[in-house]
């Protein structure tokens, strides 16, 4: 049995302890916003938050998140709003992604948004070198210049 919360909803699943969180979320819970890109923690497409920190869910066994609070892209805005009564539809990061017209095919962007969200939460005013070192997700469509512009704009507010 594995028990964890996804976007504030508690789930108890009769699954193997070594099943990666990615496949528990996608195939067992049917939530498809979190993407499969490489399966070896290299591309970042599968990034989710565990207690607010980014992890690559393709290599995170469910046993490692027992009892933890997981946020996926579908729950990001609600998690960010916390207990505030006015729940925004989008976070500032998501809004910046629209303003800067970042996604192309969009497949990497769930992971990119999750990675940047936790990064900016812990480092609201990053240098370029810090951005380079921390945001290692792959975007095959090459949205990087726009991602950098959006991060800079978010850092300035």
């Amino acid at each position, binding site marked *: 049995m594995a028990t964890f919360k996804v976007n504030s909803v508690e789930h108890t699943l009769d*699954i*193997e302890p070594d*099943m*990666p969180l990615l*496949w528990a979320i*996608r*195939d*067992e819970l*049917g939530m*498809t*916003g*979190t*993407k*499969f*890109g*490489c*399966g*070896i923690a*290299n*591309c970042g*497409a599968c990034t989710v938050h565990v207690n607010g920190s980014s992890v690559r869910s393709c290599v995170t066994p469910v046993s490692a998140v027992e009892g933890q609070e997981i946020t*996926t*892209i*579908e729950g*990001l*805005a609600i998690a960010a709003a916390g207990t505030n009564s006015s729940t925004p539809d*989008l976070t500032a990061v*998501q809004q910046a*992604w*629209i303003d800067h*017209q*970042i*996604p*192309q*095919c*969009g*497949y*990497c*962007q*769930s992971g990119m*948004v999750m990675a940047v969200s936790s990064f900016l939460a812990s480092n609201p005013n990053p240098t370029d070198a810090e*951005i*380079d*070192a921390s*945001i*290692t*997700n*792959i*975007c*095959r*469509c*090459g*949205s*990087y*210049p*726009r*991602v*950098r512009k959006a991060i800079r704009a978010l850092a300035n507010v």
Partner: protein
Amino acid sequence: MKMNRRRFILASAIAGGGVLIGYSATRPSRHRRANEELVQGPERFISSFIKIDPSNDITIYIPHSEMGQGIHTSLSMMAADELDAAWEDVIIEQAPAIDLFANGDLVKGFAGEFGVPSFLMGLVNVSSFSVAELMNLQTTGGSTSIRYTGEYAMRTAGAAAREMLIAAAANRWSVSSTELTTELSYVQHNASGRSLSFGELAADAALLEPPENPSLKDRSQFNIMGRAISRNDIPAKVDGSAMYGLDAHSDDMLYAAIKLTPVFGTKLLSVDASEALAQRGVKRVIELEDSVAVVADNYWRAKKALELVNATFEESEFDKVSSTDIAARFDRELAESNGSTDKEVGDAEAALEESADVIEASYRVPYLAHAAMEPMNCTVHIQGDHADMWTSTQDALGMRGRVASVAGLPEENVTFHQTYCGGGYGRRLPFNWNMIDHATLIAKEFDVPVKTIFSREDDMQQDYYRPAVHNNFKAAFDANNKVIAWHSRFTGPIQVPGASHIAYDIENQSIRVVDGDSHVPIAAWRSVDHSQQTFFIESFMDEIAHRVGMNPYQMRMDLLQEHPRHRKVLEVAAEAAGYGQNLPDGHALGIAVQESFGSFVAEIAEVSMGEENQPIVHKVTCAVDCGWAVNPDTVEAQIESGIIFGLTAAMYGEITIENGRVAQGNFPDYEMVRMATSPEIEVHIVESGEALGGLGEPATPPIAAAVTNAIYILTGQRVRELPIKNHDFSRSNPVAQV
């Protein structure tokens, strides 16, 4: 010979080398069929692709796949502008995968350019497909959507619908249609101050016959085209709600993991699956001709059990083949065969013979995988004589046809569910069928949906690759250092005619192609032959310039006197990049220019050498003349994307063959440009007002040579073989910038 109507249209387009503008967008009146077959409520199709309901919601159906190129938005802008719709009233829908929405205009457009589009050539050669049936594709590729579907179908459909709405209003008010104007989804009669919304006129307009040649706007009359409009697909891509093929899901769904024969073209001999079958969740182990699949109730379980399957594949003559063997074979072909003519002008051989000075160089590039972020996948659900399918594709109708033929069903019995496409770049075009065939054969064994997923390793090792190419060059100079001969011999096949040709004014040219076959399957890869040829040509041009001590920019300008669009983008890029001015210490600029898919692109890369003696690309300045820009922000995004895609290939891209199979498996072996290695990119759109050019591909070709030309200045080393990462720059000997 009796020709049906469709066949006639395409046949005449090819025979005449021309394009029948707008014909299929308005005739035969596809809107009548659409109203009969697709409409349930009071809304009406007014012309192909455009549906209007009484409350003035205007739905535009887009017959192309959205892969991030912003095509849904750009094509809607083209139709909406000609219609004089208010952009706020426009709803954008993916056209369903039915023949009513085939995008044969793409084919007609290409037919005008080259004959049948080369990346679709297989259709004509390999199957019962006739040229006429090409019209029935819904293909997205060749940087064609805006140029052909947009120009010849969407704009015409919008303009035709506008004229029909005006005619309906003229009838209603008993006035001449010349007294009527349109604006923001309304028809107006200024003399009497009356107006009716398009929605109020739609039912009447739908009864009319679309005009054959509706008049299109001048650029000065555009209200929507030319504005930077936000893409409609983006909001769903930031909150996880955008559905890709891989996201097809149902509670009773099964998942297949598959192991394909590692050596292309060989067959499965035997399987021991006893251990796999005993694993939790495993339903079946399925043996196919060239592969074995495990089907389970969760992909991870299927994949894990697959590792326990003992599969033996047949031995083959290719088992020992490596990249070195393939390279040796290519070199042998080049040495021994005269090949076939690609282009001959004057007498290059004679000029070389007589010339005072000759320069020679050999270039080569490796096979490349597409590596779209969304691994290949396909979900098929077969119930009796009907099938449903989900897959991310560049050709919905083609995929539907393929599933139908593999499942043994009539095409109409297969329902294609369109999703967003997590990257295409050519991988998801017709003929790259392996995934679709396997998924269909596996699903045939079950009565629930089965999702077959290629792992990243499968995706990389079972792709259809960008061909490896070798190219040998010679050029000859006269006594005044003028280039008088250009001699190029390269390994084929030619996928896009003309990519090896040069715009440079050189009197004698001999360009010939030899056989470049191997057992590695190949396909179109973003920008197709231009990706290799532009690297070769623009590098060798640079060698020529340095050889005679000319500035590489000036040399290009001098040899492009007859090509004002090339010159203009070079000029704009050079000016913007500060070419010829002082640069930071240790930086150099490399330059390259190319025309492809109707657009002209110059790129200037600013490069320095890092502490590890590896190049750092700081900035790329790009000027692009794509005629004019339908959606300028999308143009910039496509240029940025194309440059980074090409830069990844130039720096890291390499698929090698060992023991007949692909040696690379996942991203660490096939590295990508990432945030830390991504340059700043500055895009300048040059509006020449000429015919629209493509944008998905043209930015990719020039970047490799732009970077390696800068590396030459920094290190004195000419990179004649990609990727750059394989070169050792530790003994650098900088060259003075001329």
